């Protein structure tokens, strides 16, 4: 009984003592009591402001490093999906470094891990909607719910349906498809 009690005390002590530590390693990711089911939300003001000035500031954990390496370059940004998104060198460095440091393959958050695994053996996807895992999670949606829905238009407008997307939460329970109030996953 005594050994069990000591074991429980030790376990609880370890859990409680690391409550304030963000996951930096696999071990910490397993032990930390913080929820890590979703994606790390954007917490860089410059990234949020620069990217968010034109579109939803996609959390870097939605794409792997190799994708951000292709997207965030001085050569690629003048033609960023058909638009000129050029940035000065200093700003680009901040945004590039932030995206790389928080890319899917650098994160232990569950959805990022899934994206990292799904993109591991394929060419770097440039669009989040090209990721196998993302495709699978949205396959049941009909065209009229997305393209034909005047309040959605495209899967790339994450926050049109994922009501907590800005917090990095993409759970099915937080989805609300405009004009389809009775939709259930």
């Amino acid at each position, binding site marked *: *009984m005594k050994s*069990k*009690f000591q074991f*429980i*005390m030790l*376990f*609880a002590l370890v*859990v*409680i003592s690391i*409550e304030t530590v963000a996951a930096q390693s696999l071990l910490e990711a*397993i032990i930390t*009591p913080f*929820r*890590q*089911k979703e994606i790390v939300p*954007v*917490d860089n*003001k410059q990234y*949020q*402001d620069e990217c*968010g*000035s*034109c*579109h939803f*500031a996609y959390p870097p954990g939605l794409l792997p490093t190799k994708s951000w390496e292709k997207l965030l370059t001085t050569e690629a940004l003048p033609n*960023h*999906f*058909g*638009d000129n*998104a050029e940035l000065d060198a200093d700003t680009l460095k901040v945004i590039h470094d932030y995206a790389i440091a928080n890319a899917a393959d650098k994160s232990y958050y*569950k959805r990022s*891990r*899934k994206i990292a*695994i*799904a993109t591991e053996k394929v060419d770097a996807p440039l669009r*989040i*909607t090209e990721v196998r895992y993302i495709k*699978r*999670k949205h396959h*049941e949606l009909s065209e009229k719910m997305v*393209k034909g829905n*005047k*309040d*959605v*238009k*495209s*899967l*790339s*407008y994450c*926050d*049109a349906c994922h*009501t*907590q997307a*800005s917090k*990095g939460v993409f*759970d*099915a*329970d*937080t989805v*609300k498809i405009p004009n389809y109030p009775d939709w259930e996953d």
Partner: protein
Amino acid sequence: MVLRLNLQKFIANAMLALAFTGPVFAETFDFTLPESRFYAQEAKSFLIAANDVETSKVATNIAPSSQEEFKPKLFSGSKLHQYLGVSTAVLAGAAFITHPHPTDPNAPRETNGTHAQLAKATVVAAVATIVAGVLSHWDDFSLEDGWTDPDNLHVILGVTGAALMAYAVDKSANSSTAVEHAREAELGALGMIVAIKLTW
């Protein structure tokens, strides 16, 4: 001595409860920055940045974010799976703590005591958790992602853990003499707890 043991049990239960409620409190913290003042969904560049270029050319009236209107569901299959999983872990912890320590090895076995009841309840909760998980998360696991995928690992560890705990309960319940079954049960419980953590 009895008082001391009861106190120890109480503290251990309180610690377990604290450990499990920690993540719930952690969820209440808001680590996000406020929305950018420059956020403009109607901007042309926003529309062009959309993956579907054809759509973006005609899209002129993108709906504003519906975050303010969102009210989380009180109950869902996913939440049921979550609650059942945590309940299983708590029941397993309670069964672990109430494990009897007979001083006389020839004493009659207690097959319907607190430990036995909790162990059986743990297995029932584990099975219910698996059923709820299959029904609500069927599209989260896929063999093409391999066994390192967090959801695939969750399934492997969760099902193996439940099977080990069921085996331990069955082994003990169907034996007329005291039989060693703690190793299987503890390994099974550990498997389920790690499975929960992987997707928590």
